[in-house]
């Protein structure tokens, strides 16, 4: 899809005329954080260079508006920073932490899964840990194996962590606002290839209280023959595939869960009950990934409705390599999605 070019670090080209009015995902996240920081003085930010040289520009302008106490540049000390977010949350603040690349959370997992996520439970409900960790994720930009992963399946596995994955500008803003207002730890995965993409929005996008609640999937396209469940860039790849297949007389429904924790099981299962076929697509590694979770969920709950074996696409289990032809070989795309669907609906 031309939308997802390999231009992450290059100046953006001219905005297409029809897209001028549409907010970008990056801008939508920025806007959500700005509004929430205006609304609630306990919201503050920590991250490397978020004030001095905003990575990917998502925090641009926030330090100027809110000052360096509330938009804090941190040293390269991710354990301390995530831990500080946990402690600040215990102390009544609402921290937002940015990682430059979400993969780097690898060095601070304990503070998330064993501290932030467990403290409320372990104290018998005495504390709340409201914090948001922003994790740029995903491949397709030649950024290399430790800068290109989509590790949300891990955090859906571990208890106590909410997980959001916005695929449009409206969702990026509304889910971010929900994340900041949530009293639990939230991981907010932002696909790097989506940052500059622009999407049309309804008027409520402007409403500073328009929040998109967690746990409600979006049906991005209605269809009858097969359900694709996809997140982030794969939503758009699936929509492109669906469009192409419509011409072949195949009607595809595209469901975007929007949050993995909580997961809108009803919408996913309901869709498959209607279409009878399921394809789960994600950039995540396949084994124990979110795709298999969706297959398991659907076969447990809608076995009788299935007309064909469910299928999944994802990274088959190799690191995301650097060279473009290698990288393309390990990630799903519209073409592979269309091929898989064709094979599933053709008897």
């Amino acid at each position, binding site marked *: 899809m031309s939308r997802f070019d390999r231009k992450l670090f290059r100046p953006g080209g001219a905005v297409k005329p029809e897209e001028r009015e549409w907010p970008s995902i990056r801008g939508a996240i920025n806007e959500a954080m700005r509004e929430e920081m205006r609304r609630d003085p306990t919201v*503050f930010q920590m991250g490397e260079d978020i004030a001095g040289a905003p990575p990917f520009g998502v925090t641009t302008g926030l330090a100027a508006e809110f000052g360096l*106490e*509330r938009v*804090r540049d*941190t*040293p390269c*000390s*991710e*354990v*301390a*920073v*995530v*831990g*500080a*977010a*946990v*402690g*600040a*949350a*215990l*102390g*009544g*603040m609402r*921290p937002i932490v940015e990682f430059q690349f979400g993969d780097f959370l690898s060095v601070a997992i*304990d*503070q998330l899964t*064993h*501290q932030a996520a467990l*403290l*409320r*439970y*372990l*104290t*018998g*409900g*005495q*504390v*709340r*840990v*409201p914090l948001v960790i922003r994790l740029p994720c995903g491949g397709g930009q030649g950024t290399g194996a430790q800068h290109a992963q989509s590790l949300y399946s891990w955090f859906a596995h571990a*208890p*106590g962590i909410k997980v959001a994955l916005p695929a449009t500008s409206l969702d990026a803003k509304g889910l971010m606002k929900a994340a900041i207002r949530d*009293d*639990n730890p939230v991981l907010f995965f932002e696909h790097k290839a989506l940052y500059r993409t622009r999407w049309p929005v309804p008027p409520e996008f402007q409403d500073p209280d328009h929040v998109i609640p967690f746990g409600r999937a979006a049906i991005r396209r209605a269809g009858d023959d097969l359900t694709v469940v996809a997140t982030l860039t794969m939503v758009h790849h699936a929509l492109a595939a669906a469009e192409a297949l419509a011409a072949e007389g195949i009607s595809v429904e595209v469901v975007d869960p929007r949050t993995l924790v909580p997961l809108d099981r009803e919408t996913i299962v309901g869709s498959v009950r209607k279409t009878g076929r399921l394809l789960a697509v994600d950039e995540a590694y396949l084994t124990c990934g979110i795709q298999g979770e969706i297959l398991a969920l659907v076969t447990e709950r809608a076995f009788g409705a299935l007309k064909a074996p469910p299928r999944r696409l994802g990274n088959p289990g190799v690191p995301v390599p650097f060279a473009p032809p290698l990288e393309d070989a390990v990630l799903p795309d519209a073409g592979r999605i269309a091929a898989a669907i064709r094979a599933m609906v053709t008897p």
Partner: protein
Amino acid sequence: MRTEIGLLRTMLLIRRLEAAWAEAYARDEIGGIPPALSTGQEAVSAGACAALEPGDVVFTTHRGQAPQVARGLDPTRIMAELYGRRTGYNKGKSYHVTDVSRGVIGMGGIVAAQVPVAAGMALAQKLRGTDRVSLVFFGDGAANEGAVHESANLAAMWTLPLILLCENNGYCISQPVAVAVKAASIADRAAAYGLPGALVDGNDPLAVRDAVAAAVARARAGGGTTLVEARTVRLGGHLAHDPQHYRSREEIAAAWEACPIKRFRARLAAAGLLTEEASARMEAEIEAEIAAAVEFARQSPVPEPREAFEDLWA
């Protein structure tokens, strides 16, 4: 509990509460990981917590009962938690006792993980414009975790109202501190972050109290973080069941000679601050208090299975 007598009482209460815990574990009334006792280390928690005020927040380790008691938590609810009862502070969910109302956050499952969290609490205290401080306990073993390094540096950068209290009891389980720390002291590491560091006799509750009080005063005044190393001695095993094959009898016997309770009691008696009679009365009171705590815990109901599914989400 800032008076001398108060400090002694706190130290005795810690010792007796923990002894009762160990006895209950030995009787198999309590399960799980064997008790991590502070026997011989009571002066550290008693002294440090005496330098704090309400609204200050303490973060504990796996060896956490001493600061709980020193912060004035209710022995009955501590004991109930150790017994895994729903009347315990954490409703039986975790034996790392927390009482938010008294500023004790129980951590300790993961060595050193409480240190960055305490830095964050100090950041919140600062951002919210209070003059409250956070104090975090960690051991000599924990001092070698990256989390401590990162937190100390962050606290120095941000001038956080934080006291990094390293309770050096000479061992990380079976590893002597001299093997794992080649610097002259852990307090010396403060210089690596541009922080003040203080080395104090952790078996003297007054010395600990004064060193921590100075650090607290600095923090309240906006002067930032201090690293205090309190040198003490672990009199028992790492956990209650540890046979300590790695330690000589002589070493253990010598350590008992320096028992801080014995020493402090003698000092108070010599100073005329404690009569035999008052001492006996104090012990009897504590005995009764602990017996009541054990009884309360025993009589308390265990949690219902469905409670396992509560308290995860806010």
